[in-house]
C-alpha cells in the first residue's frame, strides 16, 4: 500500500515536471495537464499523510496547476525608475549580492504585522540551534540579531503580498559601542505579479511569497529554512532556471536596449565534451538589438513578446555561431545570461547590478517559482 501511494506521488510530480517543460504548447490544448491533477486530488492528501506531514487544507483544494500555465507571451519590460516606488536604501540591499533562489510553498498564518516577533523568534532559534551543536561557522561567542523588514512598493498587483527582507547581523563578543554590526546573511521573500487565480484560490490564512532569495553561508540558510518550516508549515525547494527561462531573460534585456544601454549581451553555454567545454558569446548590444528588432517586425503587438520571437532570436544567434564554428550550441545547455542589468545562472543564482529591470525579472522568477511548487 505504501509503495503504491509513493508511486502515485511520483507520477503527480513527474507530470508537473513535463508539464512545466511543455511551455511551447499553446495554452488551449493541454489535456495532459488536467488529467493527473484530477486523478491525484485525493491521493495527494493521502500521500502527504503517509509521508508523515501534517495534513492541512492544502490537500483538499482543487489542483492548482490546472490554472497555472507557463505563459507563451509576456509584457515587454519598460524599465522605469524603481526609486519612485521603493526606498532607495532598500533597493541598494537588493542590488548588492548574488542571490541563490528557492521556492517556498504558501506560509500559514504569516502576518506582516508580526515582523518584530519573528525577528526575536528567529534569533532565539539560531542561538538554540548553535547550542545544540549545529555546525555554524562562526565563533562560539558571537551573538546574532535578526531583523525582518517589509520592502514596500515592489508588489505589482493587489494580490501580491509585500516583500519581506531578512538580515542576520553578528555581534562579535568584544564589540565596541557604536560598532556597526556586520551583516552575515540576508534573504528576502517576494511575490511579484503572481498568478491571481492561484493567489485567490488559496485558503484563508495563507500568504504566498513563493520566491526566496538568499545570500550567505549555507548553514545559516538551512537554519532559517528550518525555522520557516516549523513556524509556517511550508516547504522549500531549489529553483533552478532552465534554458527557456534564461532565453526569456536574454530577450527581455535585449529588448530594453534602446531605452537603457545594456552594454553587452553575454550568453554562456556548456557542452558535455570530455573535458566539458564552456562557450561564451558576447554580442555587441546594438547588433543584438538589431537582430531582435528584425524578428519583432513581423509581430504587430508592441507591448508583448511571445515565445516564438524568443526562440527565433536564440536560433538566429545559434545559426550565426554555427556558420563560423559548425558547432551545435543546442547540444549543450545555456548556463548563464548577463548584461549590465545583471546576470542569471541556471543553477538558480541571480544578480542585479542596477535597480532598473528588477521588477520584470522578479515577475518572471515568481512565475517560475509558482510553476515549480508541488502544490
Amino acid at each position, binding site marked *: 500500500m505504501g509503495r503504491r501511494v509513493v508511486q502515485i506521488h511520483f507520477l503527480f510530480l513527474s507530470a508537473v515536471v513535463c508539464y512545466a517543460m511543455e511551455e511551447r504548447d499553446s495554452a488551449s490544448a493541454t489535456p495532459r495537464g488536467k488529467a493527473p491533477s484530477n486523478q491525484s486530488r485525493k491521493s495527494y492528501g493521502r500521500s502527504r499523510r503517509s509521508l508523515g506531514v501534517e495534513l492541512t487544507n492544502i490537500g483538499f483544494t482543487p489542483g492548482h496547476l490546472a490554472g497555472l500555465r507557463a505563459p507563451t507571451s509576456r509584457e515587454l519590460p519598460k524599465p522605469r525608475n524603481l526609486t519612485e516606488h521603493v526606498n532607495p536604501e532598500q533597493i541598494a540591499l537588493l542590488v548588492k549580492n548574488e542571490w541563490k533562489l528557492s521556492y517556498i510553498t504558501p506560509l500559514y498564518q504569516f502576518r506582516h504585522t508580526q515582523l518584530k516577533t519573528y525577528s526575536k523568534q528567529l534569533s532565539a532559534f539560531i542561538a538554540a540551534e548553535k547550542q545544540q551543536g549545529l555546525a555554524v561557522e562562526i565563533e562560539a561567542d558571537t551573538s546574532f540579531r535578526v531583523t525582518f523588514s517589509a520592502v514596500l512598493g515592489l508588489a505589482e498587483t493587489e494580490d501580491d503580498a509585500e516583500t519581506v527582507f531578512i538580515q542576520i547581523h553578528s555581534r562579535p563578543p568584544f564589540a565596541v559601542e557604536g560598532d556597526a554590526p556586520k551583516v552575515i546573511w540576508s534573504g528576502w521573500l517576494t511575490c511579484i505579479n503572481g498568478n491571481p487565480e492561484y493567489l485567490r484560490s488559496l485558503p484563508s490564512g495563507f500568504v504566498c511569497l513563493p520566491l526566496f532569495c538568499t545570500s550567505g553561508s549555507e548553514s545559516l540558510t538551512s537554519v532559517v529554512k528550518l525555522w520557516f518550516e516549523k513556524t509556517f508549515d511550508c516547504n522549500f525547494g531549489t529553483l533552478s532556471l532552465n534554458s527557456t527561462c534564461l532565453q526569456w531573460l536574454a530577450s527581455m534585456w535585449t529588448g530594453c536596449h534602446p531605452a537603457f544601454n545594456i552594454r553587452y549581451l553575454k550568453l554562456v553555454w556548456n557542452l558535455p565534451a570530455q573535458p566539458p*567545454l564552456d562557450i561564451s558569446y558576447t554580442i555587441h548590444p546594438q547588433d543584438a538589438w538589431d537582430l531582435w528588432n528584425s524578428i519583432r517586425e513581423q509581430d504587430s503587438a508592441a507591448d508583448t513578446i511571445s515565445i516564438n520571437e524568443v526562440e527565433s532570436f536564440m536560433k538566429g544567434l545559434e545559426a*550565426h555561431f554555427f556558420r563560423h564554428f559548425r558547432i551545435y550550441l543546442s547540444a549543450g545547455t545555456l548556463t548563464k545570461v548577463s548584461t549590465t542589468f545583471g546576470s542569471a545562472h541556471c543553477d538558480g543564482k541571480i544578480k542585479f547590478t542596477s535597480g532598473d529591470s528588477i521588477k520584470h525579472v522578479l515577475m518572471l522568477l515568481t512565475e517560475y517559482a509558482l510553476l515549480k511548487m508541488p502544490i
Partner: protein
Amino acid sequence: MEDLAKEVLTRIVRKIPVVKLRQVLGRWERLSERQLRSLDFTQPKWALCENLLSLCEENNITVKQLAEIEMLYRTEYPDQGIWHVFQFVDTPEETQCSDFMHFRDLFKANLKSLINHVSIQMKKLEDESVWIRIAWGENFRRPNHLKPTYVVHHLQTPYVFVSGLTNKHKPLLFQALALSAQCGSVKDVNLSGRCLSALRDLSMRQYKQVFPISHQECLQERDPLPNPNIENEHIKLTEYKQQVASEVFGDAVLPKLETAVYKLETKYREHGNENLVKKDEPFRGVVKFSSSNLLESLKYCVSSGMASAPVTPLLSSITQKGRNYFVIKDKGSGLIPNTPGPKF
C-alpha cells in the same frame, strides 16, 4: 635585513607549497647543510618563515639572492600565470645568436641602457632555454621584486615566452630583446595559456599530428560482445567523424590549452532576417572557448557529432597556425581567420 628583503621572503614562503620549498631551498646553495637541517618543515608557515629569515640574516642574503629562490621555483614549475608567445621577425639568418654568454651580455647591456633601475637575472637550462627574470624599477624607485617579469627564450628559435609583463614595460623589453637577438622587431603571435610546454609545442610544431591508418579495428575492439547478428547502423558515420577528428587534431597527446578567443566582425547572413542581412555593418561579437584541456574538448566535439564535420578552418587554425586569438572578418565569399602576425 631590510624591509623589502623581508617582504620578498615572506611572499616567497607564502606562495610556494612546503614540499616544493624544501626542494628549492636545497638547490639554492646559499644556506649551509647545517642551516638547512635546522629548518623544521612541519611547522606552520609563519614559523618557518621566521626561522628562514633569521638564517638569511646570518648569511647576509640580499634581495637579489632571495629572488633566486623564486626563479628556481618558477623554472621547476613553470605552469603558473599566463604566458604570452612572441616571435622575432626580420632576422637575417646568419646573425642568429646561439651563444648564451653573448646573448646574456647583450641583453643586460641593452636593457640597462634603456632603463636605469632594473634587476636582471639570467639562467640557461639543460634544454637550451634561457630564463630571464626582470624586476623593474623607476627613476626614483628600486626594482620591484614582488612583480617580476619572466622571459623564456630558446636560443635556436625565434620564439619568446613572456609572463607578468605590464604594458608600461613592454616596449622596453621588446627593444632590448630585438637588439640582443639582432632582429627587426618582436611580434605578437596571439597565443597564450598557462602551460608553457604546450605553448612551446604548439608554436614550434613539435606537436606531431599522427594520421590514423584505419579505425575499423578500434571500433570493433570496443564492442564487448561482438555479435555477428547485431549491426551498428551508424558505424560508417561514427568512423568518419573519428577520422576527421584525428586528422584535424591528431592522435597523440594534445597540448594543453585553456582558452581560444575569436573576435567576430562578419556580417549576419542567416535566413529569415532579411532586414538585418541587408545591412552592411558586421554583426560584432566575441566568442570565447574555455575548458581544462581545450583541444581535447574540441576533438571530442568533432568525434561525437556536436561539431559537424568537416571541421571549420577557424578551429583547425589553433593547431595549424599555433595561435588562440583570432579576429575574423569577411573575406570575399568565405571566412578566413585574419593573421595580423607575421606570415610563415
